[in-house]
């Protein structure tokens, strides 16, 4: 009962935190993207991926809709939209 407790690596993926979103989600327009990767760096969930220009997108299963990717994008290529 008092022994160490272990968890499997990366098992938090079981929590689909996308359900936390409060009515808004980011939309990756994929038109003016320069592949600077800043959105990947700033995402608290680590749920954005992409390689070349205009390929960036996020995993809505985990995105909590905080909108920092919108704030950091130097080309205004990410916008917040109504979440349906």
């Amino acid at each position: 009962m008092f022994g160490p407790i272990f968890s499997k690596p990366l098992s938090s993926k079981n929590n689909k935190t996308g359900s936390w979103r409060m009515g808004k989600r980011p939309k990756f327009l994929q038109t003016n993207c320069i592949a600077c990767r800043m959105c990947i760096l700033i995402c608290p969930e680590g749920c954005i991926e992409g390689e070349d220009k205009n390929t960036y997108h996020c995993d809505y299963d985990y995105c909590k809709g905080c909108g920092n990717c919108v704030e950091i994008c130097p080309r205004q290529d990410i916008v917040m939209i109504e979440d349906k």
Partner: protein
Amino acid sequence: MREDILFASGHTACAGCGQAIAARLVIESAGPNTIIANNTGCLEVFSTKYPESSWGVPWIHSLFENAAAVASGIESALQYLGKKNIQVIAQAGDGGTADIGLQALSGMWERGHNILSICYDNEAYMNTGIQRSSLTPLDSETTTTPVGEKSFGNPTLKKPVAEIALAHGIPYVATASVGFPQDLQKKIKKALSIRGPKYIQIHVPCPLGWRHEPNLTYRIARLAVETGLYPLIEYENGVLSSARKISVVAVEEYLKLQARFKHLLNNEEEIKKIQEIANNNIKRYSLS
């Protein structure tokens, strides 16, 4: 999804959590050959909600105060086993670093362990309900420094933990911010290339405790640096080796976005005191 993930989605940090951004940047910069010891705190709680874990590297939590001691043991064991290519990180929030864990941390620095200690500085005990810590800034409202007729919030200045670290004679001390993610990554990589104890303090906005909109985490972190309130500095072998130049923004721009400072907005006298702190930093580190 990417296969190189070391800090997985699905953790239970609040939307817009600055600490979650920093924690991921740290472990992605450090790479997979890393062992982490973590003090109690928000990061420990939200990244390891039992029975799940967000970590893709060996990670251990023991108590609030002892990550530095646990990390010291891990580092010594690795040395005994002759495993030279494994890095050890001891990490904590501001409470776990500057208050509760300072003794173990001081011991780790003083004994000269080859460990990187990281402080995620969100300027109060956010996990337990926003109580002040010794890294809470002047005039910040917390649940233990409420604002009233005779109180403007926290009456004390931030404890100079970076200077305490420097006083131990350790080879690398730096401050970083999630507002400057590439700078943060560079500093983590640089620190890990140096043998001996290292200390990096990262400014991480907390939407819950600082009471700002979740999407402003990045902007607020940048403003803290641009006002001069959180200078990004680097000390190598006790000598100031870099200080990020800033465009100098008035402190009100930083304060007005956060409800923890909202009682200051018509109080010129108190704002002057905070501007003074920024001015002193700008002068001391030649930031402008």
